[in-house]
């Protein structure tokens, strides 16, 4: 059961930047293609490597995630794996039936009804008429569009088309499944349904998965390749590490002022006792106390202490936590037009990774904003464990014996 289904050795592919040149190369390739063309492929003028020297192996039950920014060569690699284009160097060996979720609903004709298009799409995916006849009811139910199945597809919403397309594709029983960013269009319910479907076929299949959605990648992949300009810059089984690197490529240290009425401004922020070897990028150990030292300067007309809301944001720009705001007991004071204070949190258990802070300074019972800033501080949490969730909570496991005794005691006392 555990044979290697996909084996890729030193795969490279080049593309041309200029259309006219590309077409002319196409003519040349047609001519040389006829004679087999065994020559070593060099870069011709205007060409670049879209995929360079990629190697991996994939067994049944494994899922490889391909990540990287737009134009990193992910889709090109998929096209080679799917046999749509030939590589310029290297070799791909694929065993078994290959299914591709690259485009859903291929072959749909907008004029024809959903039911007719199930046959069109199914035929292109390699089903026989008999197979489709057997499965057509199942497909309609899976897509949940029975009511509209005899309506022309051109009147479907894009989500409905994707539903129908996936429902047909889900009937494939591939040994190797190639998934490109196709599931993004459906609504949440449908995306969850798709993943449930993928989960059921995963044990029998080797999957290559391209996505920009890191939660999805971390959820289903056990191997990962981070691509940049056609090359693999990270490869291995540490999915979290690759995702971190992926995010670091987008990390910006820019502070972003969203709202400012000019009455208060942030002078500085730092973390007490953090490792500041890298300037502007403090590192903090998991489980330490967090002490954020703020210094604000008051510009004009601010004779009260505003409220400070500090929001912790993860690398995906998702807010993960909010620090309790200040109250009268906080006892903050403005001295010489500056306001300094420390926000503390004991035993900080954020999981390993890069985070940033946003802040809202507000006044009054409705918390009308005075100043709103994003990315006031980027910092890194250090821990040996790589985990996906934002918090790694300290825990203590113990046998239930002691608790049982407590319960018995409690019951005994009640009597």
């Amino acid at each position, binding site marked *: 059961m555990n044979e290697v*289904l996909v084996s890729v050795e030193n795969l490279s592919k080049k*593309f*041309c930047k200029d259309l006219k040149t*590309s*077409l002319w*190369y*196409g*003519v040349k*390739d*047609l001519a040389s*293609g*006829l*004679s*087999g*063309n*065994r020559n070593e*492929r060099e870069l011709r003028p205007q060409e670049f490597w879209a995929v360079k020297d990629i190697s991996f192996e994939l067994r049944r039950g494994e899922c490889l995630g391909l990540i990287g920014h737009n134009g990193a060569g992910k889709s090109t690699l998929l*096209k*080679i*794996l*799917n*046999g*749509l*284009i*030939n*590589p*310029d*160097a*290297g*070799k*791909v*060996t*694929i*065993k*078994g*039936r*290959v299914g*591709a979720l*690259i*485009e859903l609903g*291929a*072959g749909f*004709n907008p*004029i*024809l009804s959903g039911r*007719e298009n199930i*046959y*069109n799409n199914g*035929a*292109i*995916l*390699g089903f*026989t*008429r008999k197979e489709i006849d057997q499965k057509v009811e199942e497909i309609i139910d899976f897509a949940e569009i029975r009511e509209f199945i005899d309506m022309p597809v051109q009147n479907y919403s894009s989500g409905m088309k994707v539903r129908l397309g996936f429902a047909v594709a889900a009937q494939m029983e591939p*040994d190797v499944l190639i998934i490109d960013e196709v599931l993004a269009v459906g609504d949440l319910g449908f995306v969850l349904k798709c993943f449930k479907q993928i989960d059921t076929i995963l044990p029998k299949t080797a999957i290559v998965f391209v996505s920009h959605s890191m939660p999805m990648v971390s959820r289903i992949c056990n191997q990962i390749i981070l691509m940049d300009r056609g090359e693999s810059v990270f490869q291995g089984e540490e999915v979290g590490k690759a995702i971190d690197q992926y995010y670091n490529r987008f990390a910006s240290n820019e502070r972003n002022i969203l709202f400012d009425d000019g009455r208060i401004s942030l002078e500085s922020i730092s973390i007490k006792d953090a490792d500041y070897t890298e300037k502007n990028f403090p590192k903090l150990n998991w489980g330490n106390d967090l002490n954020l030292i703020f210094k604000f300067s008051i510009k004009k007309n601010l004779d009260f202490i505003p409220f400070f809301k500090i929001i912790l944001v993860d690398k995906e720009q998702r807010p993960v936590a909010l620090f309790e705001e200040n109250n009268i007991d906080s006892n903050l004071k403005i001295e010489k037009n500056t306001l300094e204070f420390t926000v503390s949190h004991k035993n900080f258990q954020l999981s390993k990774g890069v985070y940033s802070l946003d802040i809202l300074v507000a006044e009054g019972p409705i918390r009308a904003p005075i100043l709103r800033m994003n990315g006031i501080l980027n910092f890194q949490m250090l821990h040996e464990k790589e985990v996906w969730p934002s918090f790694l909570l300290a825990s203590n496991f113990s046998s239930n014996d002691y608790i049982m005794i407590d319960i018995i005691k409690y019951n005994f006392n009640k009597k």
Partner: protein
Amino acid sequence: MKLETKIYQKENNFHIGKMLKESLADIAKSRFLSFQLAKRDIQAQYRQSYLGIIWAFVTPLATAFVWIFLNNSGTVRVTDTGIPYPVYAFSGTLLWSIMTEAINSPMSSTNSAKGILSKINFPKEALVISGIYKLLFNSSIKIILLLFFIFFFGVGFHWSLLLFPVAILGGILFGTTIGLFITPLGMLYKDIGRMISFGLGFLMYVTPVVYAIPKTGIMKTVMELNPFTPIILTARDLAVGMTPIYGTYFLIVIVCCIPLLFIALLFYRISIPILVERMSA
């Protein structure tokens, strides 16, 4: 269960025999796909139109009427054709339209499938076959109309009429072969498609479509060499019950076309990945 193994690498495994076998196996395997694609296109074409099938023969009919008018009014005097001129002109334009459709069919099928070619791996030969299905469908409608003409103008039934479909098939074979050779280049450069439709416009006048081959002169030589001539003439002769004079030339053309068709299929098969790369690059 033994799993099928696919290997993709830069070298094409260029064994003609093996590739041809694969190509033919793909054609056999994708029978349903080619049928379904043809059905889809035909259905869609007629669902969005009231006149529907009429469009299939309105162009040859119009060309024929122009020539019938030119001839009857004495503007242009064509040599005696041996059969009523309307039958001659209409059978000519109709056969010609089948030929041009056959030449354009592989390219238009491939072009309209551009979107899925760069996304999904399916037997590409199915596109060619579905094009042929569509051709057969359109041709059969045209043939019915031609039969009407033949009986209406009193040419009547001849046993050779039964061979007429064979001649049509020969014409489709000839056209498809040419079309397949043109397709790869035509997919790269739009010029090719324009050149073809432009060139065919001229070619019609050196083929006995609306007038017979003159008795003497340079035109006679050109028309007799033209490989379209035996196909049009043989088909027409069979339909109206005359002895096909160019029967031998017709057979030569068809026999030459069979190996050429296989070569064209291979060429098509090899060129598709190269085209997909350039289309999606």
